[in-house]
């Protein structure tokens, strides 16, 4: 079962390539011309978000190195207790909102100290699977497109994240 799942996941990207190119050959479209035009567009998109990326990653880096994320984690600890969420997972959840790679580092620490099949290990896996780097991604989108007032996007994303955490706890503790 595990092997099949991983095989299927590995096959998604080549599968998409195959289907797309097959359809294009079938329809006899200008495959290479289309591809080159698309690639140029990708350059524009990437260059467009680069300034936001530099500002944002510097800010997140500073926040992490200064211990600011730990302070946010401590502030949130009572809320975690209220939810009966293991306190080891609070830093993981806070960090995931800003940086995916930093969250993976913490996840691997949890695997090392508790094991991937322990309650905490399972819960950490499921929570990370059902959450996004909300602050990071929202900033990239809004920053690079010049939208200044985000209105209820952040509260909405937080509600979704919280629902994911509660859902994870319900299903893992069963």
């Amino acid at each position: 079962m595990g092997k099949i799942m991983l095989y299927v996941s590995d096959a998604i990207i080549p599968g998409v390539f195959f289907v797309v190119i097959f359809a294009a050959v079938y329809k006899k479209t200008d495959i290479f011309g289309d591809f080159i035009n698309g690639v140029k567009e990708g350059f524009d998109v990437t260059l467009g978000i680069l300034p936001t990326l530099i500002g944002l990653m510097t800010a997140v880096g500073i926040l992490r190195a200064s211990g600011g994320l730990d302070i946010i984690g401590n502030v949130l600890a009572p809320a975690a207790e209220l939810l009966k969420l293991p306190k080891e997972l609070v830093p993981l959840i806070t960090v995931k909102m800003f940086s995916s790679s930093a969250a993976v580092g913490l996840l691997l620490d949890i695997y090392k100290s508790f094991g991937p099949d322990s309650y905490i290990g399972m819960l950490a896996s499921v929570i990370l699977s059902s959450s996004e780097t909300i602050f990071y991604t929202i900033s990239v989108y809004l920053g690079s497109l010049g939208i200044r007032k985000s209105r209820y996007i952040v509260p909405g994303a937080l509600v979704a994240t919280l629902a994911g955490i509660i859902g994870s706890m319900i299903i893992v503790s069963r």
Partner: protein
Amino acid sequence: MILFGIVVAAFTGNMGRVSAEAINSAKEAVSLAITMLGVMSLWTGIMEVAKGAGLMDKLTGLMRPVIRFLFPGLPAGHRVNEYIASNMIANILGLGWAATPAGLKAVKELKRLNGDKALANANICTFLIVNMSSLQLIPVNIIAYRSQYGSANPVSILVPAIFATTCSTAAGVVFALLWRKKHG
């Protein structure tokens, strides 16, 4: 964020780490952008081929009921529908790199339809909230980490993860739709 970080560092004595990290992060952003330049452009290239072959129209058609439910009042046949559809499908399949360019274009078009205001309207809010609720069905990388760290059954998180993702997406959708109803 930067101000908060620096103030905290002044109290915790992490100033040295902060200045090293600031320079490091800026460097990291550029190398990330170079990686992105390759992967993202590859995807936008493939997407363009798919568009030429008429596949995007089919996908958009498939997603139309969902789009109409989440974003009432979007002009039918407008290319924003196509961007939203490809962003969501790429997210569901876990192809983050393919999702971002389509997502950025979708928000750009939503903003244009809103008269290019700097204020996010209901469609933009709904789009980003749904995006941030995690749509990915198969957490491939987490499964890989689990097997790497000696899990007896790495895939055992699959069903719980799908359940939790459904919870978060449902909550995001309900929140976005209720807010739209109440405040417009």
